[in-house]
Structure formats: structure tokens, C-alpha cells
């Protein structure tokens, strides 16, 4: 179960941000934006094994006392960040990957809406609902 999801565009500007607990929103926004540095670092290390680089899933970016942050970057340079509660030990790597894949699917769907201009913030009600379902694991 994720507590926060963010979609960052190519130019590192946020396109979408969703937090299950509105009080923690500001704190998470800060953490998410700082994790972008780690994303850049991972993308730029070309000396590691080629297999690692070819995957879209980046794994855990960093871990805080109470939360863990995971990243995923598409071929089209869109970054997805998921923040998960550390106390939730049951969440395995596979489940995080699966959440990212569903998120990527949702994003690919919204891009196909001819009335959505890529680069704008995403303000679709159905997208909100779908993302919340992914976060709470009800999908």
C-alpha cells in the first residue's frame, strides 16, 4: 500500500501528485523532489551491467526512517515515484513493480486522450480514482 505517488515530467516539473493523507502532502512533495537527484544518478551510471540500465524499474531510491521511496523511469523520460510506509513489511519488490506497471498503463492511457496536452498537469477525475485504487491495492 503506497502513501504517495508522483509523476514528474521530462523537464522535472511535477505533472501529478497524490497523497492519501493530505496533512503529509507538503513533506512528501519535498522528499519526492529530492529523490529526483538519485534518479538522475541512477540513469547516468552507464558503467554498471547493461541489464540494470535497460530496466525501467529503478528499485529503491532511498530509505527514510518511516518511509521508503521507489523510482521508475519510462522510455519517454517520465518519472514515477512511489512512497511506501516502512512499517508495511508485507510489501515485496514484485508488488512495487506491479504498482509501477499499472501506473505506467494509466499514464499511457491518459496520454491518448486527445484533449490532454502532454506537458500539462494531469487533472482527470477517472485518473485520480484509478491511481488511488492502485495505491490502496484494490486494483
Amino acid at each position, binding site marked *: 500500500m503506497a502513501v504517495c505517488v508522483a509523476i514528474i515530467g*521530462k523537464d522535472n516539473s511535477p505533472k501529478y501528485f497524490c497523497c492519501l493523507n493530505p496533512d503529509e502532502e507538503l513533506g512528501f512533495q519535498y522528499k519526492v523532489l529530492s529523490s529526483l537527484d538519485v534518479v538522475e544518478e541512477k540513469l547516468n551510471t552507464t558503467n554498471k551491467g*547493461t541489464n540494470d*540500465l*535497460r*530496466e*525501467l524499474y529503478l528499485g529503491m531510491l532511498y530509505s527514510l526512517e518511516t518511509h521508503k521511496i521507489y523510482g521508475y*523511469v*519510462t*522510455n*519517454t*523520460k517520465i518519472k514515477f515515484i512511489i512512497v511506501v510506509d516502512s512499517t508495511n513489511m508485507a510489501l515485496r519488490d514484485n508488488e512495487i513493480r506491479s504498482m509501477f506497471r499499472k501506473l*505506467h*498503463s494509466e*499514464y*499511457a492511457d491518459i*496520454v*491518448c486522450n*486527445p484533449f490532454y496536452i*502532454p506537458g500539462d498537469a494531469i487533472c482527470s477525475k477517472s485518473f485520480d480514482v484509478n491511481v488511488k485504487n492502485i495505491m490502496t491495492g484494490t486494483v
Partner: protein
Amino acid sequence: MSDDAVFEFLHSELINYIISQNEGKSKEGKDEDLSNIEYIGFSTGYRIIERLTKEMPRFKDELDTMKFICTDFWSALYKKQIDNLRTNHQGVYVLQDNSFRFLTKLSSGKQYLEVAPRFVAFTCGIIRGSLANLGIGCLVTAEVQNMPSCKFHIQVQRT
């Protein structure tokens, strides 16, 4: 959708619509304004690449991306691969299709050469849109000398 006919006809009607819109405005130069057709292609390419590359691993480099455009991408859209890819390894690529889908319906004589640009504008846009979304900004133009063969010139813009 099982039929190519729908896309062929939609493409033709799209061109007719844009040309008729252009007639409404005053035109000075001899060259037709095909930028709207190109833009529709750009928008389509930008969006379709998002869906196509969803399950794919990350591209290694620019050449890898170009090869993808010439093979899987072109096959999916135009039922065949690009016949020839040339590059100067400095950001210029030439993609040659010897039997371009939208030109095969026009007879191969010289008389349709004038209107050939209309039929390649959309594809120039698709290429430009797809590459743009993959992080490669570029200019795409097309050269038609012997129908139905067509060459797409891609000039990558380095920032």
C-alpha cells in the same frame, strides 16, 4: 480493428480537410502549408510511442532508438520495415522506404509528384513526435523522387 482501409481513408480525408481549410485563407507562396497535417502526425506519434514503448527495455543510445523506428515501429504502422538506414553518425539520418504505404496508391508516374508532399507530411510528423517523446528533438523532412519510394531526412537538434 481489422482493416487498413479505415486508416487509409481517414488519412486521405484528413489531408482533404486541411487543404480545404488552407483554401479559405489567402495563400501567397507556391508551397502548400502542410504544417497542420504534420502537427496532427506529431501529436499522434507522440502519444502512440508512449503506448508502444511501455513494455520495452530502455534504449541504449540514439542509434538504438533509430533502429527501433526503422524496424518494429515502421512494421507496426506501415506493415514493413524501412529498407535502408544511413547516418553520418553526427545526428543526420536518412530512412528510405521503397514502397511507402501512402504513395503506392498513386500511380508511379511523374504527374502526382506535385501532390506527393501531402501524403508524406503526416508521417514526417509521426516520426518527429515519436522521437520528441523519446527525448530526441529533431526536424524531419521527406524527399520523393521516384514514387512510391520515399526518403525521410531526420536532423537531430543538439542543444
